[in-house]
């Protein structure tokens, strides 16, 4: 069976999921009696299926050899997310669906205009600087938006709160993939062993140190440990894959640990985060900064093994006060555990893991270093983003506000992740294209 036919079949589970999901929410809302079930849920399913088929047809023409599983996996995640958001609020779901349409257009545009994605290498410094500027924008007055003490958004009045981290992560990965393609050999060859630890040559150590400094700066500037962890993790992943030197990763982790420790003991808002993290159920902090994580844990306990079903979780008190804050964005994973239980949440994580696996597979198949490093970087940053937010929600690490890719509500997240998907598919198509004899 050809790759594209497999992709088409792969879309069937996604469309079934979206139809069943909407049906479940309708039933929970008692729409059965109003006879709204049959046509409405099917309509949503049909529209979504239509979008997916359209994208599939586009891929069939544009990237016939690309990996057949990446897109259906994204479709499953996206439609699951849409059901979750619809369950929270109809209006949000409608906006989310609109962002999907825009996202798919951007996806198509990326594939059309970046057919030869390797020309991105020519603009790597521009891309790197652009990404850093993007990251710092939320700190500027007037346009910056502070959410929960972190500077993560730029307010675009009437449209959205633009989240630059989502796009910056792509830029940084492109830059690193390109930079490391050039320097990986020198880093390995020029390395010296000092005190049993292999150190990269000083000349090239500088830029790496600069990146470490940047990550630390991010912690201070945007006050977000999660994003900083995500960027630095992607950097170390790429460094490791490019050089196959675990000692470099070790040094990197050590430096990050030292920096993190310093900030975690000297910067007040980081200290607050750490305190909440070590004792999430503290009574004194409950009604303040501890409210989010405490209720995240309560929601997960409420869900148990099988969950309460779509619409079964309690998001608001009878008086209309929020019980689970940011349920559609940061804490959506807690809501997932609450409604579909541990079983459903593990299914979501496995879906992400499968996506990442396909990304790494693409990296293995790629025929040039830049393509390999790009696919590794994109897959790693995607996986780390999932780890940062799910780890935050489950209190593995301090909770920070990044989105759960393709599931959380939010335009920037969807747009950026569709570009990520497009880049992976571009790499994949090139890698799997039969070599002309």
């Amino acid at each position, binding site marked *: 069976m050809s790759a594209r036919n497999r992709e088409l079949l792969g879309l069937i589970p996604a469309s079934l999921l979206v139809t069943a999901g909407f049906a479940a929410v309708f039933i929970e809302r008692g729409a059965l009696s109003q006879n709204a079930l049959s046509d409405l849920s099917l309509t949503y399913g049909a529209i979504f299926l239509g979008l997916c088929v359209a994208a599939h047809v586009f891929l069939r023409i544009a990237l016939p050899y690309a990996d057949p599983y990446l897109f259906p996996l994204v479709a499953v995640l996206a439609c699951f997310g849409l059901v979750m958001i619809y369950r929270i609020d109809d209006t949000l779901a409608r906006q989310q669906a609109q962002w999907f349409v825009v996202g798919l257009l951007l996806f198509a545009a990326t594939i059309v205009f970046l057919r030869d994605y390797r020309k991105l290498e020519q603009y790597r410094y521009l891309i790197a600087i652009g990404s850093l500027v993007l990251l710092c924008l939320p700190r500027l007055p007037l346009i910056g938006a502070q959410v929960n003490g972190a500077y993560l958004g730029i307010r675009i009045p009437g449209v959205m709160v633009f989240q630059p981290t989502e796009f910056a992560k792509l830029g940084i990965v492109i830059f690193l993939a390109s930079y490391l393609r050039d320097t990986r050999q020198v880093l390995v060859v020029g390395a010296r062993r000092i005190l049993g630890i292999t150190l990269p040559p000083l000349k090239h150590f500088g830029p790496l140190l600069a990146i470490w400094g940047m990550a630390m700066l991010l912690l201070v500037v945007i006050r977000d440990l999660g994003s900083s962890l995500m960027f630095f993790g992607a950097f170390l992943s790429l460094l490791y894959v490019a050089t196959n030197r675990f000692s470099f990763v070790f040094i990197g982790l050590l430096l990050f640990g030292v920096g993190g420790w310093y900030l975690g003991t000297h910067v007040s808002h980081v200290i607050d985060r750490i305190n909440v993290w070590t004792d999430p159920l503290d009574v004194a902090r409950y009604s303040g900064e501890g409210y989010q994580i405490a209720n995240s844990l309560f929601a997960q306990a*409420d869900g148990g093994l099988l969950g309460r079903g779509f619409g079964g979780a309690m998001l608001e008190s*009878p008086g209309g006060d929020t019980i689970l804050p940011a349920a559609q964005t940061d804490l959506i994973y807690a809501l997932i555990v609450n409604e579909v239980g541990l079983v459903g949440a593990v299914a979501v994580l496995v879906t992400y893991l499968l996506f990442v696996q396909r990304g790494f597979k693409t990296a293995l198949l790629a025929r040039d270093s830049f393509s390999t490093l790009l696919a590794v970087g994109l897959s*790693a940053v995607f996986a780390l983003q999932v780890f940062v937010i799910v780890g935050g929600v489950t209190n593995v690490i301090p909770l920070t506000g990044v989105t759960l890719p393709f599931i959380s509500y939010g335009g920037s997240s969807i747009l950026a992740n569709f570009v990520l998907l497009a880049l992976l598919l571009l790499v994949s198509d090139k890698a799997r294209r039969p070599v002309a004899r």
Partner: protein
Amino acid sequence: MSVPIVRLFLAIVVLFAILVAWTSRWSIFEADDLRANTLDKRPLFAALQVKRGAIRAADGSVLARSVRVRTRSGRAIYERDYPTGELFGHPVGYANLLQGQLSGLERSRNKELSGTTSELNSILDQLQGKRRAGNTVVTTLDPEAQQIATDALAGQKGAVVAIEPSTGAVKTMVSSPGYDPNIVRDQAALRELNLDDENAPLLDRVTQGAYPPGSTFKVVTAAAALDSGEFTPDSTLDGRSGRVVSGVPLRNDFDENFDSPSLSTALTLSINTAFAQLGEELGKETMGDYMERFGFYRLPPLDYPDEQMIRSGERVDGRLVPVTSPAVDVGRMAIGQDKLLVTPLQMAMVTAAIANGGSLMEPRLTDKIVDPDGRTVDEVEPKEWSRPISEQTASELTQMMGNVVDEGTGTAVQLPGIDVAGKTGTAEKNIEQRINQPWFIAFAPKDDPRIAIAVTVESSVAGFGGTVAAPIARDVLASLLD
């Protein structure tokens, strides 16, 4: 680069495994602890969405029910409504689930009312599409007698409690002043009631009122005297006013002298000196023993919140002290004075035990539990709690208490065609202002008792048990025996 790529992927698999482990930790392994955490308001809010069971009187009339209302945000929740208002305020209590405030039967029967069933049952119900709903509690309370007792106490502070001696079923439980449990919807008004120390409307005087029992306690002394075998109804006692008890002369009412009255006569005429003599001769050990047999010094086994009941006994500075304590003047205690403080429920239990041939049944407010489909899921069976006195002692006491009503201090309780046995009591609270606490305990019919009752009024100027409390007891008895 393929080896590090595979290793990196494995590292990511490990990271995801950590996520699965932590999710399991909160949703499975530590879920019970988290669900029990009081910071989490979900269980409280969830309870608001369950139709709590009703509370009904013995005749089926509704005392408490849940009605569906919409909140500001348009959500449907259940609110508690008490159709009978103030009439059953004390026994039924109130329930404000949002604030976690529960009292009375709403509290002691919360498990049944809220429909807390096993996890398995609730899953089965869910599969059958059943909404969780609480069970109905059918009480033993009689609305008509409750109304009569409430009216009789209107404007006064006091309590009436009536028990069926053979089963322990509480038929009437009135504490005055009462309160309307519907007030629970108005937190400010509820707070105000709580702060009203003058009238203490939230205090259930039946189970929490600590009062000197006065001469009604002579029944307990007589029971100890007869049952210990040291005295008979015909034993002659000291009837001279001014008998020195614990170094202080004790006077009879109106300073009256009696010439060697029998124990029976002493009860009929409520002769203080004779009972002080009994108390002194029986001694602290025996008196304490019999009091404990009747339930003094213990919380009553009533299906009512422990927090809303107190123990009866000798109290110094509010704390219980044993009868054997040197602080106790056993002679004066034997006539219901000294530092003895009892609840009306305790005196009703004493009366019921005598009426039931010496067997004290557990008092209870619940008759049965009925599920939302109307099936009786639990019936509260009558249960003996203790056997304080022998059947013979009970029968002798019955005759003596019959005389009190026929020819003694309790003639005001006489009912046409029905023999009543009883005992008056008048505890002096302020001799100069002549403020008394009148009491009356009784049961009827004398030969086949169906109701035992205790009535007290906190303060009455120049009122006596026979003139103030006995008429109330008579009216309630008449209604319950009708």
